[in-house]
């Protein structure tokens, strides 16, 4: 990153202050969030200190603006985002001046294009999600199979009655009865399918499987329950007042909340925040410093207020079958719902060595993508000697980093939407064209 001239510094400080004030943050609050002292932030805001790339990025992320907006102002930010749009959509730019020209002469059109790009990306994410659901949602697959099977029976039987002559009366009666039964069955199956796909439309409930409901519940709570009453009664009220409708999803939510309560009792908020101040979101360092289990620290990091950190923190947790039972998505790191994730993700490797921590840098090659620091560990339950398979649960914490991705492991979201060429772990064709 280039150094700033004095005139730049003046603008950077002013823009940071304006944005901070606009966000309703005090100087001390913002300083704590980005890991610097309030006096140092004061110097920056009064244009008396240069700021380095890492700090600029943290400030931008915390203030929810592009780093280029802080460093170079609104128009430069517009140019940078236009150029990013062009790269994302594979549009070759004749020269960088074209974007700057558009931003300067037609800023509203430039903004319109950026908004369109954002919309396109949102739609692409939706398509990815739906594709994942159509391919791997076992409930949906089973429902569609039932519908197709019943339609087949009706079509085949009705064709016999229409096309074939001289059918004995007893056979005619039999086929009429079959069609009647199948048409009733089809109506019920279609009704159930529509209800499954469109449950939210009638009562505001969350549609989908119990896991979808749990995901939506956690997302609505911003993935933490800081300050909530987590006594048994409190958990009951939280669940009852939520949009969790199915008994299954309510049981899942209660189970999660009990685990969350146990974690917060063993690793109290004040102690945990001190550790975060000392070690950031370094799960291994915190677990080591506090002598607590790493899986617990990973859960605490994933399910704490996002304001405690200067990066987004995501989580994927699976059981021995590879099925996810907890998901906290993070921008650029898509986690599919139905157990079809990239087999290169280290949480799957961790399943084979419970208790051992795996640290990896991952480059996610999805549409949004990015480079992520990850730490994975599996924990073992009911490990007493016997013939029963012990329960193993594996966790992977991810957070975006901006380091050089050269030594990272390339991963995807799922084979179906992954374009990594020559991947030895590929198990199905990609809709993006990669062969097995």
């Amino acid at each position, binding site marked *: 990153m280039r150094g700033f001239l004095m005139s730049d510094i003046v603008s950077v400080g002013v823009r940071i202050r304006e944005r901070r004030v606009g966000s309703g943050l005090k100087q001390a609050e913002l300083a704590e969030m980005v890991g610097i002292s309030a006096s140092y932030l004061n110097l920056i805001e009064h244009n008396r200190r240069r700021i380095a790339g890492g700090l600029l990025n943290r400030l931008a992320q915390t203030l929810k603006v592009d780093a280029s907006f802080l460093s170079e102002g609104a128009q430069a930010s517009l140019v940078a985002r236009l150029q990013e749009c062009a790269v994302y959509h594979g549009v070759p730019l004749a020269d960088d001046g074209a974007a700057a020209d558009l931003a300067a002469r037609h800023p509203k059109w430039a903004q319109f294009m950026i908004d369109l790009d954002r919309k396109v990306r949102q739609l692409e994410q939706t398509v990815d999600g739906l594709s994942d659901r159509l391919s791997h949602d076992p409930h949906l697959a089973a429902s*569609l*199979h039932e519908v*197709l*099977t*019943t*339609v*087949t*029976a009706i*079509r*085949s*039987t009705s*064709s*016999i009655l229409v*096309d*074939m002559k001289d059918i004995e009366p007893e*056979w005619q009666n*039999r*086929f009429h009865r*079959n069609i009647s*039964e*199948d048409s009733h069955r089809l109506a019920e199956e279609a009704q159930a399918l529509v209800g499954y796909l469109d449950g939210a439309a009638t009562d505001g409930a969350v549609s989908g499987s119990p896991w979808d409901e749990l995901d939506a519940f956690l997302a609505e709570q911003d993935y933490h329950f800081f300050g909530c009453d987590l006594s048994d009664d409190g958990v009951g009220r939280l669940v009852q007042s939520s949009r969790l409708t199915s008994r299954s999803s309510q049981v899942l939510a209660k189970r999660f909340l009990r685990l969350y309560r146990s974690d917060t009792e063993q690793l109290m908020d004040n102690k945990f925040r001190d550790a975060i101040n000392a070690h950031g979101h370094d799960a291994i360092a915190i677990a080591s410093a506090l002598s607590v289990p790493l899986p617990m620290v990973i859960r605490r990091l994933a399910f704490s207020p996002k304001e405690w950190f200067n990066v987004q923190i995501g989580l994927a947790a699976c059981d021995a079958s590879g099925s996810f039972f907890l998901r906290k998505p993070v921008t650029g790191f898509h986690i599919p719902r139905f157990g079809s994730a990239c087999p290169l993700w280290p949480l799957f490797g961790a399943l084979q060595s419970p208790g051992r921590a795996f640290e990896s840098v991952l480059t996610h090659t999805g549409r949004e993508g990015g480079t992520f620091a990850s730490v994975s560990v599996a924990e073992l339950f009911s490990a007493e000697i016997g013939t029963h398979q012990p329960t193993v649960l594996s966790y992977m914490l991810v957070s975006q980093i901006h380091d050089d991705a050269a030594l990272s492991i390339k991963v995807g979201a799922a084979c179906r939407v992954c374009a990594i060429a020559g991947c030895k772990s590929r198990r*199905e*064709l990609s809709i993006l064209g990669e062969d097995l």
Partner: protein
Amino acid sequence: MGKSVLLIEDEPNIVEAISFILSRDGWSVMTHSNGHDANNVIETKSPDLVILDVMLPGKSGFDILRDLRQGGARPEVPVLVLTARGQTKDRELAFALGASEFMSKPFSNGDVLETVRRLVNA
């Protein structure tokens, strides 16, 4: 007695309809409704053609086909895979495992009849 077809399908009304049209066309139709012992039934009944559903209780049609082609007693018997799983990847998997023909549900009776005749007389 005409040539024989073994229909392995768990939906009784589809079994009834296909059995009817094949019988009317002169075929001897045998039926079986689960995947558990389907490979044994193919071996003992020794049909001229197998019509095989994929989503079967006990064992999937793909597994039955794989076992049939890899060491079954009648590895050469033509197999028509008839399934509601009609995606390209299912079709490709069926042929990779040795299916003679693949049809997705819902199908037309005429197409089933024509395909059965073609496979047995090939």
